[in-house]
């Protein structure tokens, strides 16, 4: 079938929207991998969490996901207490910080169960969604990855798979099997020549760009950002310079969950998300990250954008083979990488 300009523009627009989401996820996966060597397989679950929590809040249901946060907080507190008891200099943990962390999910739950969430303005709903999901990142790092931080990459990968499988199960239990979508941020749409662009599309692309710029500023202009970058470039060296690997791990997981949940909030008005949608979405971000060689941020973002565009056009030309085409992309890049590889990854 021939493709004409209006169709190409519509597909291009569609590809860029999805590509922008994949780019955010690719950046998150890359960040976590370079800092902690963990392949962030659960990244997609935070997308589903973000979308479904937002939908639950808009439907006026209490966000039951807050109880996962509470469970993780309790587990974390117990783990921290054990550390406090057994180690003489438990410099990382103080008792008051522990109490604050423990109290946080319950205060949040009290708020969520008593506020009329359906009628709150959308930015507030989004803030609540992030307030529930984002702290899970550092919690998950603390509980499942910090104790095995120096284990071989393969063990970290297996732990990541285990976390992902558990989160999918929790997601089904909390949100049920049906997909949900949310109200658009605004109903407006704009005409650019022959193309009609919905404001939600602009929101997605604009937010993705803003986040990428914010990340760039964070990494190049703040002390914490530079510390994270240092940890990514050379973990041992960074530790010797006084950068805590625990801080670096938690911070990278925090950013990853933030990016995941935001992606979910952004994409939920465009497409229905169900408890098991996250994995495939993040897998496409992962393809982008692979194209970036799991090293370079701009390459990963560009790769993810390319995945989005290729997906959109492949759906038009050969819809039966769309996934095959998208995931086969990885092979030439892996080949090329392995042939021209200069080892940057230190294996300990």
């Amino acid at each position, binding site marked *: 079938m021939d493709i004409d300009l209006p169709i190409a523009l519509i597909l291009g627009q569609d590809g860029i929207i999805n590509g922008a989401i994949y780019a955010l996820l690719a950046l998150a996966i890359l960040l976590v991998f370079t800092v902690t060597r963990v392949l962030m397989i659960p990244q997609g679950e935070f997308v589903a969490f973000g979308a479904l929590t937002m939908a639950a809040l808009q439907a006026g249901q209490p966000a039951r996901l807050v109880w996962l946060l509470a469970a993780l907080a309790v587990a974390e507190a117990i783990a921290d207490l054990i550390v406090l008891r057994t180690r003489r200099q438990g410099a990382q943990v103080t008792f008051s910080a522990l109490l604050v962390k423990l109290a946080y999910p319950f205060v949040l739950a009290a708020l969520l169960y008593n506020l009329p969430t359906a009628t709150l303005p959308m930015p507030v709903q989004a803030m609540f969604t992030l307030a529930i999901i984002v702290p899970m990142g550092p919690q998950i790092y603390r509980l499942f990855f910090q104790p095995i931080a120096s284990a071989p990459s393969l063990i970290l990968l297996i732990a990541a*798979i285990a976390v992902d499988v558990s989160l999918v199960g929790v997601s089904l239990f909390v949100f049920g099997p049906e997909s949900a979508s949310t109200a658009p941020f605004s109903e407006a749409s704009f005409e650019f020549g022959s193309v009609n662009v919905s404001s939600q599309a602009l929101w997605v692309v604009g937010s993705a760009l803003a986040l990428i710029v914010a990340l760039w500023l964070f990494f190049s202009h703040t002390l914490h950002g530079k510390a994270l970058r240092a940890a990514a470039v050379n973990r041992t060296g960074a530790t010797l310079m006084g950068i805590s690997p625990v801080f670096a791990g938690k911070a990278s997981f925090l950013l990853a969950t933030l990016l995941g949940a935001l992606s979910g909030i952004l994409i939920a008005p465009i497409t229905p998300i169900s408890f098991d949608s996250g994995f495939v979405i993040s897998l496409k971000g992962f393809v982008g990250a692979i194209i970036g060689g799991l090293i370079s941020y701009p390459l990963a973002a560009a790769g993810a954008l390319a995945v989005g565009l290729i997906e959109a056009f492949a*759906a038009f030309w050969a819809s039966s083979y769309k996934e095959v085409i998208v995931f086969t992309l990885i092979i030439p890049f892996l080949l090329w990488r392995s042939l021209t590889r200069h080892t940057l990854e230190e294996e300990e």
Partner: protein
Amino acid sequence: MFPKYLATFAATLTFTIGAANAQVRIGVIASSTGPVASIGIPQKNSAALLPIRVGDLTVEYVVLDDGSDPTAAVTAAKKLINEHHVDAIIGPSGSPQAMGLVQFVAEAGTPMIAPVGSAGVVLPMNAQKKWVFKTTQNDSASVEVLLAHMAKTGIRKIGVMISNDAFGENRYKEIVAQAKGFGLSIVANEKYQRGDTSVMGQVMKLIAAKPEAIFIACPGSPAILPQATLRDKGYKGRIYQSDGAALEAFLKQGGKKVEGTILQGSMMLVLSEIPASNPSRKVMSDYVAAYEKRFGKAETFGSQLYDAGLLVANAIPVAVRKAKPGTAEFRAALRDALEATKDFVATQGRYSMTPENHSGMDKKGANELITVQEGKWRLVR
């Protein structure tokens, strides 16, 4: 790859309904996790509503989850047969899982009643498939009714959009096989994945082919996305959906975009419009009432499994006259009794089995031609 771990884990979570030392033991396999959980959960719930006393006998139901995975379904079936020594198996939720089980239930000589659509489970009849029965109307019948409606309303060119899975493939095969007979030509056929976040490419291609109507076949709520995208892009033709879309979520999430859709679905959706002379109406309303008391809004998929349970319960008193439950002779007698089912009224309609026909429902089936009007299911008149 990942759902498999999940499934193996989930398959170890067993729960039973009814007395633990019951005389008759029935295994239930439902996909209550994984991609088709929206079908499996109402089915798992419905198992809890099945009769736990049949005549003087107590009946126990052992419910296992297969995580929507055919391999895990086989594991679950073997577990039911070898460890729980069940007299019959009800389930599994999907055609791919059911196809995978045919060989195993036949080897074990355990009758299986599957709430699935694919006629391939019971046809062509052979030595293995004689152990298998099904309660959901055939794919061919559900497609036929919709194609007939298209032909009757003057449609000649159709587009087809299916999910890239066994459900979609089966429907597509039927559409291709039957379209000619109704004078319909397929001008575009596209596929998508249930998890897709966008189907813009497929939709643009469908619209470019200018079909007068579009047939969408996908199980569960992902059936909405192509329809919503079609309407967003200004497609004005009529949209047909398969029975896979006959879900409450379809109305709730589809909103205005699914208005006027024509699909084929269980009478459960339009129960108040069904004449009281239809004997199934009472069975169905009792089922819906019992379900909603315990689990909230009933879904049609649940009633398909419930019917399978009723058929077994109906056959048990006949079989028990020949042999003692728990023996191979009882299972064979149960199979014979199921095959002799005649004019048995359950939620979906009237079942009659013969040695050649294990699908039980006649061509008309129990499904009704349904449309969406003002956000509600309505009978097409």
